[in-house]
């Protein structure tokens, strides 16, 4: 929570000036009843009957003047508040975006993409609105209330005491209503979220729901959830609907009491009629401000809830210690280094040949409670070797290769690259050395060249085209009309196979020393896949290549094939070796090619 206040740091001046000008406006407003009081005393005095209207005009001019000064100071305050709020949200969004980008993979998994996006958009907007309203009103309303009480004291101490009591009662009433109501509203929101999810499910699952003929059950569940929502709303409404009537009654009863005592004071000559009217006006002012204040509390509460959610993201990104978090302009590099997944050592950047990769008794668990996703993996890939990784769904193939660029940390054991522990390596240099082609082929809005330069920002067109050729993607580039053809977000204007080949090219542009192809030829036909593998073998340099696949054909020619089964190594060796020694491998092979006898290879 405190963390978010930092973003107001650069707007200290505005944050002071906005409420100050609001206070100024409020002060002028507080003078109005005094002017009216003297006016009433003047006109109700028998002596002034029939006299000139000079005093009345002076009072009128004073009222207009107060209005103009109030208008000016209020507009000024609005500007400063808007300035601070928008500046706050810009800096907040910047840092939040930066933090989200600095999360490591397991944190991304835990948080979920849609949550991250709502934090960035809806929550930041709510927080911005909160800051804005806070600066505008939070001082104004209490100031008017306090001011009205103080003014009452200047008029008459006894009546002012009544004011104090009434204000105390009002605050207690409003506070109690809020306190009861806010958790109710939160519940209503969660009910609403539930029926939203349910509705969306019913649409996306229309076929399944109809096929299983469970429409009526689903409808029943929905109607129950809907009824719960409504009874929650009505329950919350019972409390929140109390706010306006209750405060109104309290204030007006107070006014009645005030006038009763005022009468006695007047009879004793301690008050004038005008002053009684002034007290009456102050009481009414309190009512108006109190309602505004109550609404403000709701807004602020919402903003605080958003702020909490945002802070949670920061806390996650900051890891254990809070100091490490960057707030100002410290570079991302520092932040990446500070996330604890990477140390300070770097890989030799001059060397373009492959790195050796060694796993020593590596285990990986995604959740503390879950079983191991990888258990006791040990192998060594020599520099320049091609390693095939094969196994069934959920056997741990992707988990294994994700450990190489340090996307996840091994729970036990160590991963060594060129003999250096991954944890000790600088994250940036490690990632620069590893070219990854993820399972999901995603490209970004922009030109093909923009996309391919992700691997190396200053790559020449020739370098890019080399990579495109290796990835067998020349026809994709040609079909789209050259490297400067525009791609839509996600690469939607490409087919799956086209997208996949471009993501391979993207990984190749930086001439990575380790290349990881994570099931990245699934959308390619066999001929293209074969060509790709041949091209990779004949690169001008020799990276260490990891090919993850479900297809035996894709890994058959690898120097070493690691067969995974349920997170464990079921066998390591060449195709020929594994066919005789590894049952799992043979089963996979036969499931795709049939038994050797039948087809004779």
């Amino acid at each position: 929570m405190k963390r978010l206040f930092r973003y107001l740091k650069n707007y200290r001046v505005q944050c002071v000036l906005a409420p100050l000008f609001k206070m100024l406006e409020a002060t002028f407003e507080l003078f109005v009843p005094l002017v009216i009081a003297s006016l009433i005393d003047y006109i109700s005095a028998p002596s002034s009957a029939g006299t000139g209207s000079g005093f009345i005009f002076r009072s009128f001019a004073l009222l207009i003047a107060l209005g103009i000064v109030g208008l000016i100071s209020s507009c000024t305050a609005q500007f400063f508040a808007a300035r601070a709020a928008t500046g706050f949200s810009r800096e907040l969004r910047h840092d939040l975006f930066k933090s989200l980008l600095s999360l490591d993979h397991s944190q991304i998994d835990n948080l979920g993409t849609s949550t991250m996006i709502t934090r960035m958009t809806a929550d930041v907007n709510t927080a911005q609105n909160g800051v804005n309203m806070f600066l505008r009103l939070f001082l104004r309303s209490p100031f008017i209330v306090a001011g009205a009480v103080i003014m009452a004291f200047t008029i008459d101490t006894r009546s002012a005491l009544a004011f104090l009591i009434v204000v105390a009662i009002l605050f207690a009433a409003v506070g109690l209503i809020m306190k009861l109501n806010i958790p109710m509203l939160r519940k209503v929101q969660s009910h609403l979220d539930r029926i939203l999810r349910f509705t969306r499910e019913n649409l996306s699952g229309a076929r399944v729901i109809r096929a299983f003929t469970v429409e009526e059950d689903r409808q029943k569940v929905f109607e129950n959830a809907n009824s719960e929502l409504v009874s929650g709303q009505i329950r919350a409404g019972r409390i929140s609907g109390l706010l306006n009537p209750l405060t109104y009654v309290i204030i007006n009863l107070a006014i009645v009491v005030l006038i009763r005592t005022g009468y006695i004071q007047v009879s004793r000559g301690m008050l004038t009629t005008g002053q009684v009217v002034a007290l009456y006006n102050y009481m009414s002012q309190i009512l108006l401000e109190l309602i505004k204040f109550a609404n403000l509390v709701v807004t602020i509460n919402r903003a605080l809830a958003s702020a909490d959610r945002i802070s949670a993201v920061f806390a996650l990104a900051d890891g254990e210690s809070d100091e490490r978090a960057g707030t100002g302009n410290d570079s991302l590099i520092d932040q990446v280094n500070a996330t604890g997944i990477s140390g300070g050592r770097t890989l030799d950047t001059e060397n373009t040949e492959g790195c050796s990769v060694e796993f020593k008794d590596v285990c990986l668990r995604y959740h503390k409670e879950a079983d191991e996703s990888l258990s006791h993996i040990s192998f060594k890939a020599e520099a320049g070797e091609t390693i095939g990784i094969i196994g069934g769904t959920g056997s741990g193939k992707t988990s294994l290769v994700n450990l190489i660029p340090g996307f996840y940390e091994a729970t036990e054991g160590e991963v060594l690259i060129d003999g250096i522990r991954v944890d000790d390596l600088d994250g940036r240099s490690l990632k620069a050395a590893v070219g990854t082609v993820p399972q999901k082929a995603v490209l970004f809005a922009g030109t093909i060249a923009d996309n391919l330069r992700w691997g190396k920002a200053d790559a020449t067109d020739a370098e890019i085209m080399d990579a495109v050729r290796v990835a067998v993607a020349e026809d994709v580039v040609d079909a789209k009309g050259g490297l400067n053809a525009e791609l839509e977000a996600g690469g939607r204007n490409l087919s799956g196979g086209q997208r996949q080949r471009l993501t391979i090219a993207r990984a190749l542009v930086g001439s990575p020393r380790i290349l990881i192809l994570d099931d990245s030829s699934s959308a390619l036909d066999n001929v293209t896949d074969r060509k790709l593998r041949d091209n990779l073998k004949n690169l001008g340099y020799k990276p260490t290549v990891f090919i993850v696949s479900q297809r035996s054909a894709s890994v058959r020619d690898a120097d070493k094939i690691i067969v995974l089964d349920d997170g464990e190594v079921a066998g390591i060796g060449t195709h020929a070796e594994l066919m005789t020694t590894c049952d799992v491998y043979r089963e996979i092979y036969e499931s795709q090619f049939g038994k050797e006898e039948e087809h004779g290879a």
Partner: protein
Amino acid sequence: MALDTSGFVPKGNLNTDESALGRTGRRATVKAVLARLSAFRGWILVSLLMAVVSVVCTLQVPIRIGYVIDGICLIFGGEAMDETAVAGVTTIMWRDLIMAAVFAVLVGVSTYIMNLVNNHITYLTVRDIRNDALEHINVLPLKYIDSHSQGDIVSRIIADADQFADGMLMGFTQAFTGILTILGTLFFMLRMNVAVTLVVVCVTPLSLFIARFISSRTYKMFRTQSIERGEQTALIDEMIGNAKIVKAFNREEEVLSRFDEINGRLEKSSLKAIFYSSLTNPCTRFVNAVCYALVALTGSYFVLMSASGSMSRLVSGLSVGTLTVFLAYANQYTKPFNEISGVISELQGAVACAARVFEILDAEPESPDASDSLIDTEGYVDVDNVDFSYVADRELITDLNLHIKPGQRVAIVGPTGCGKTTIINLLMRFYDTDDGSISVDGRKIDTVSRHSLRSSYGMVLQETWLAGGTIADNIRFGAPQATDEEVIAAAKASGAHSFIRRLPDRYDTLIGEGGASLSQGQMQLLCITRVMLNIPPMLILDEATSSIDTRTEMRIQKAFLSMMQGRTSFIVAHRLSTIREADVILVMRDGHIIEQGDHETLLKSGGFYSELYNSQF
């Protein structure tokens, strides 16, 4: 098919729809809303009654207090009065004061009752609309669901319905009381003094014009802001959605600098929009202050005039107490004006939102269901001369004929877009044929209820949809009464058990909407398990194993085979290895069946099938 990929639902977009919503459309919507409200006639009557009570009492409070102040003036301000006169005035004063208190309490009580009643009316109306909408979705043709954006439909049922409720609630509470307050104030003011009333009536609407002026000027600024916000959200969506790739390529800084560029622009446009729109309040407050000052000026003038006895006969006099009433009214009078202008736009919005919701309710449902049911289905399936197309002039399936005996395994193969999945859509009656007929056990499927037809089929689709809830809930989807043992047995048979036992809470693990935390293959295994728990007499497997590796597939093949034993089965697959053992293989191309026969015969004939089959090696 439109898919909703965004994680949240945007608020109902009014700007685009308001123009699309014609005058007649608006009238029809209002009619529909009123029809729904007519069920609450009694409640509405109570609400209106309470509004009248609350407004009249609200206006009475300052009047009574004004009388009391006049009393004070009379006793202490003017010439000295004798004791009996003073006693008379004070009795009247106290009565008025007590009346003020009583009226204040009445205001409180009536307002509260009105609030409760209005809540009741709106929330229940919206609840019924939502229930109807969801029920309607179940009978909407799939064509409607497939051809409309799901995000849009959801946003109509949730966000639009909510906004409609808000608008209606505001309309109820504020429009009526607002108008009543204006009329009531006018009435009481006119009774007190015409000239001062004129001042109030002339000046107050100024605040309305100013508010209108500002909002029309700021409209463009808000548009710019929302465009830039949209641009930023798109970037966030793209980059955060693929954060892993961004990180893998060390692109954080480049992405951040692009983000900052939009962020800077957004800050500027937000500042403008927020600042200029926030001028409304100070400006209307200023108008209010001017009105107040003018009332004080003219009112005081009249008080002096009446005190000096120099009043003309045309204008009634003014007492100090009445002046305080006027001042109180001057303060209150602008409020309903500002509120009503807010209410009008809110109501317009509410009508637009309601129209969007009603569009769903008014969408043509599926043709009415037959009352007959299929019982103890044996599994004869006959397709006779069927024509079908999704889009009227782009024919897809023409003159399709097919005759399947019980227990036969039918594999459907062919290139993408040849109509394989369409056949499934027709068999399950997700879509109706354009021409020709489909029969099960000799009965045309449009003569039996959809429920009985569909529950005769077990279905596994390529698209892996799971409901929110636990793993076990999902396996029990079609058979809620299944025991834990049966669930686990089914999971073991499908091969899902091995990954389920590795999940944090095993069978009680919650899976997100769409099963976000599971891989495609795992979701598909669950979809298979779901069917295995309760296997109907016929089966449809549409790319049921497309996301499962071949070895796992081979393992569950056995389970599939036992599942298909004695059941008519339709299997759509890319991988030809999985369909080699089918009794009948239908080779489809461009909506026609071009080859038909078993594996061996088709392979020997050297046609399209053998071409397809051999290309995979």
